[in-house]
């Protein structure tokens, strides 16, 4: 019987840029993004898929990138927090709203929160408070108590 291959070459498009890399078959997508592509805005806060700090968009869906192998993302379009702002000098309305509402303190959960929230807003541009809370229930924040995060999301929708 032949041995399973331990690594593979993959190609992914991240924030509009195409990357081709040889990756270990067991490499988690989050470690691929952080360690191989040096996109360190995506964070790791747990080892069980609970915290959501690593949330990205994979072909338009919000996913926890620690629950996906890098090889599974082969051929996909990814979007990370680095791809949210239209430009370095111009934040997206959601990013501006997070700042205006003090929806972040240490900023560690923020990339994942923004990715979950932006996925919600793309599907549901005017979410209610309850819908916003449900959309981020897979994202843990230990600083804010969520109050201002929920406000930031809802008000982004309201002003859209």
């Amino acid at each position, binding site marked *: 019987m032949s041995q399973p291959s331990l690594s593979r070459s993959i190609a992914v498009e991240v924030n509009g840029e195409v990357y081709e890399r040889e990756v270990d078959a067991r490499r988690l997508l989050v470690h691929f993004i952080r360690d191989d592509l040096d*996109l360190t805005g995506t964070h790791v806060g747990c080892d*069980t898929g609970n915290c959501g700090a690593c949330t990205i968009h994979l072909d338009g869906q919000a996913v926890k990138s620690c629950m996906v192998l890098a090889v599974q993302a082969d051929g996909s379009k990814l979007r990370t927090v680095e791809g949210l702002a239209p430009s370095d000098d111009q934040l997206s309305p959601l990013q501006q709203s997070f700042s205006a509402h003090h929806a972040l303190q240490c900023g560690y959960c923020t990339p994942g929160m923004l990715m979950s929230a932006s996925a919600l807003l793309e599907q549901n541009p005017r979410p209610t408070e309850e819908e916003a*809370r449900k959309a981020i229930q897979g994202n*843990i924040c230990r600083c804010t*108590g969520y109050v201002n995060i929920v406000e930031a999301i809802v008000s982004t929708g309201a002003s859209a």
Partner: protein
Amino acid sequence: MSTTETSTTAAPTELQKGHIGQSIPRKEDKRLVQGQGIFFDDVRRHGMGYVHFVRSPHAHAKILSIDVSAALELDGVYGTLTGDEVAIQTDPFFEMSTPPGANIKDYALAVGRVRFMGEPVAAVVARTRELARDAAELVEVEYEPLDVLVDARESVKDETVMHDDAGSNVVWSGVFDWGDWEAAKAEADHIVKIDELHFHRFSSTPLECSGALVEYEKASGQWTLHCNHQMPGVGAIWMAPSLRTGIDKLRFITRDIGGGFGNKICLHPYYVTLCLLARKLNRPVNWTEWRTDQHTANAHGNERWFHDVEVAVKSDGTMLGFNVKALDDCGAFPRYEPLGCIIWAQVTAGCYGWRNIRVDFTQVTTNKSPVSPNRGYSRMQHLWLTERIIDIVATELDLDRVEIRKRNYVKTEQMPYETPNGCVYDSGDYARCLDIALDLIGYDTIEERRAEAAARGKLLGFGIGSTLDSGTNNFGQSQMLNPELQFSGNNEAATVKLDIFGELVVTLGTVPQGQGHETTASQVVADIVGCSPDQVNVRQGHDTFFNSNAGFSGTYASQFAVTGLGAVKGAADALRAEMIQLAAAVLQCEEGQIELADGFARIKDGPAEAALPFMALGAIVNANNAFLPPDFNPTLNHRFVYRPYFGPVDVEKKMGKLTLTYSTQIHACVLEVDRETGVVEIVDYAAVDDCGVRIHPQIVEGQVHGATAHAIGAALHEEFIYDEDGQLLTSNFYDYHVPHALDVPALKTSAIESPSPFTPLGSKGMGEGGGGGIHCIGSAIQDALKPVGKPIVYDSCNPYHRVWSMLQDPERTRANVEVVPA
């Protein structure tokens, strides 16, 4: 001390009004919302190796042998370190206790014996994270299990002793006796007795785990730690002697830190291991803690038992005092301990005027994770006791919980108020905060809502948590534990300079983890020197090699708004004076004629051309100084060390000013309990805060929200549970449930401002909160359950199964309390 409404607060110092008190946009946000923050794990170095720790599966065992040979053979493994090497190359960390605790030997890796599940026994370094983990599995460790102690009440018997060098599990014990307890007992109409209360084990579990990238420079013997230690000054005091090196050989650099809450104070064992590995392997090493390891083996909050509580009460509800035996469980090693044996005494009296308090305090080790400070450190446990006492007394003597609080609260006209143990409450108005909180939760309609809920089969209750957040420690209190300790007072440093192009540059000794220090420091500097916060560049994070490092530098114990900003203010004041002096010399006028405003030094009411932009001042001193007279040497670069004045403490009587400021938090909530399941739902929640002058109200409110969410988690969900073998059963976010967005209700907040008369800006530290939510939720559960046999809330954590048990068997909890006529 007067208390003013927030809208009418006057800054107590002579500042140019403008930015202090405004919720300006945070400087930190732009990078953080774009994923451009720099957390330690984002830092890379050429050739760096990844560290994985080999950890003990046993709670207590002898280490018979460690074999790393198979790990070393794996391709891509750079090297290993074991306890034997640590024992040769380092000295044990110094212990703060007197004997027996002083004799405990604590090394970076386990030496000869493991004392808690997850204790590191060896470390492996490899080319990738995955390889390091693989290699760690190849390390063979042979153990001989020993009897396990998971309950402090067993540890104290010393039938099994964890640390042979100490010869006892007791780390520290002592009696605190203030006022006259026996006289209070004699004067009382009732003595309310409570057999046992338990404050449970949890921690704030910051979302970013601990870690560091450590580099070693052979030529100079210099270590650089890119890390997330939140108290590097003290970290270095632990590490340098252990590593047998000078303190300046340890350079701590922090940039963004993903939350701390005290849990990143006791990282020295891990960091010493990393220093040894970086030196041994001559390469940079990265250690990023796994979440499961953080829960298992980093830092829990102190667990505490209260036994034989006696409370002296008059018939009218006047509380005369209490007597209690406290038994604190610090886990396997007293790392920051036994400081927790004294820190609680900052809030001995809580919010209340009782004058006779006796506490017999003992701290013991157990075979569980070591503790470290955790948001509300040690005071929260004691405040929980005081709030439990008030509620239990009210329940047993059928007194109104609002009235008994108001009757016994320290009054605003008594401020500054000296407590029975010599602490001074600087300012506050507790009764007013309570009125606001009750108003916010709709207290006046509570009985109607109770009836309405009952009709739906729900038990509705309301609760109150009255707490103080004591800030700016006097480290002299450590001498009450050990008179030999050479720690007292407090300090923090900052530098402010005017640079060549007119930019104000600030460095801080503090170590922000989300509290917005860059923003608030810029507000203070802007108001002092007369410019916009945009002109002020506050360097990110902490760097030992900035000249703003002091012995107690760090961010902990609710003090930045006092110590950090006190240092910033001192440095900015000195810079301002020099800028005025320089401008007067250039414009050839009296110093009194110069004003600094809008980024200019100008002659007041002078012609438009009699104005120098800050850029001109910076350029003159830094690059165009030939014309300055020989005896005038401005630097425009100032360092200030802020040092609060405390005076000496009375070590014998254990009395003195233990801390400088006292913020107030009054929380109130309404909740409903499902009779069938014990499920608790918070339906209304209010938090009223008074931290004196608020530099940035939005940041203050954010801290209130965060502390409340921590308290809700602790009160209802979060608990580190060990089985009888010392195995942690809640080692990840599945089993250890921290609040999610659906768990935290809408929070109503309000604030009053009672400026502190003791601080440079009238501000007070407030970030920790006092655990108000833990107290008010317990209080509300007890109230809700009253119709079902009056059970007593005896634990600080009340998950649904515990509430259900109280519903099923209220008598079991009632057996815990007794009222005897005095």
